[in-house]
C-alpha cells in the first residue's frame, strides 16, 4: 500500500456504519436482496413491453428513511433510464 493511501482510506468505523444503514433498511422492510432482484426483473419485463430500458443504468432499492410520500414506512426507489419508445 502506498504511503498516501493511509490518508485516503475511509475509516473502517464509517464503513461499518454505512454498511449497517444499508443492510438494516432492507432488514426493516423485510426485503431481502433476492426479493429486490425479483422485483427488478419483473419491472424490466413489464416496462420492456413498451419502452427500451438502459439496463446498466437501472437503480432499484428500498429505503426506510422518512420521506414525505412514504409516511414513515419503507419506500421503493426506482430510477430507470429509458433509451427510447418501442415501436409497435
Amino acid at each position: 500500500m502506498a504511503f498516501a493511501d493511509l490518508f485516503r482510506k475511509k475509516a473502517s468505523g464509517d464503513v461499518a456504519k454505512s454498511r449497517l444503514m444499508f443492510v438494516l433498511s432492507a432488514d426493516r422492510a423485510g426485503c431481502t436482496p433476492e426479493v429486490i432482484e425479483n422485483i427488478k426483473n419483473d419491472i424490466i419485463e413489464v416496462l420492456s413491453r413498451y419502452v427500451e430500458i438502459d439496463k446498466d443504468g437501472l437503480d432499484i432499492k428500498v429505503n426506510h428513511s422518512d420521506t414525505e410520500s412514504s409516511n414513515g414506512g419503507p419506500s421503493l426507489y426506482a430510477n430507470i433510464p429509458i433509451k427510447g419508445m418501442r415501436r409497435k
Partner: protein
Amino acid sequence: MGEVIVITSGKGGVGKTTTTANVGTGLAKLDKKVVLIDTDIGLRNLDVVMGLENRIVYNLVDVIEGSCRIKQALIKDKRYPNLYLLPSAQTKDKTSVNPEQMKKLCEELKEEFDYILMDCPAGIEQGFHNAIAGADRALVVTTPEVSAVRDADRIIGLLEANEMKQTHLIVNRLRMDMVKRGDMMSSEDVVEILAIDLIGVVPDDENIVVSTNQGEPLVGSDTLAGKAYMNICHRIIGEEVPYLDLTEKKGLFSRLFGKK
C-alpha cells in the same frame, strides 16, 4: 410492586450475562431488593458469573413444574443483603417452560422484589419469548460491531411487536482508542442507527475478565467498567447521571515516558 427488566441482545457473546450480574448487584448495592433469573435453559451461566454455582439446589424449571416452592430455589447472595439468584436448569431445554408460565412467575416475584432481572438467551426463538413475556422494560445490549448491531435492531423490532413498554440501549465493550482513530463505531453512531434511547456505555475493560474469573461482579468498584455499570443502575432507578469520560487514563509512568 416490583419491575421486571429483561436483558437481551439477539447475538450471543455481547455481554448479556455480565450486564445482568453487574446491574443486578449494583441495584442491590443501592438497597433495592433484587432477584436475577437465568432464563437460558440448557446453557446455565449466570450462576458462575455471580460466583454462586456451588449453591444450586433447585432451578427455574423445578419452580415452573412445581417440584419446589420459589423460596426454596432462590439462592441468597451472602455478600449483599437483598440479592437473590434463580438459576437455570442445565439438563432441560427451552421447551420446558412457556411464556404464560414465565408471566405468572414474574407476577409472583413482583410482590416480593423491587427489581426482577431476566438474563435472556441469545437468539429469537422460544427462549427469547419466555424471557420477555413478563417484562415491563428491556435493556438491549450490543457491542459496536456490525453483527451485534444488526441483531440488536432485529430484537428491538421484536420487542416493539410484543409491545414492550420501555426499551433502552447499552453499548458494551467500547474501545475509545479505536473510536478516536475511526476504527470503531462510536456509541453515538450506534444510537443513531438503532434509534432508541441510550442508558449506558461500558468500556472494554480487562477488569471484567478478572471479575468474571473470580465470580465477583465489579459494579461500583474503582474501574471504568465498574463505574459505568453503577451509572446504569442509577439511571434505572430514575436518577440522571452524566456519561463517563471513557478515555483511558494513563499511569504516571506512561504519561512521562510513553508515546502519545
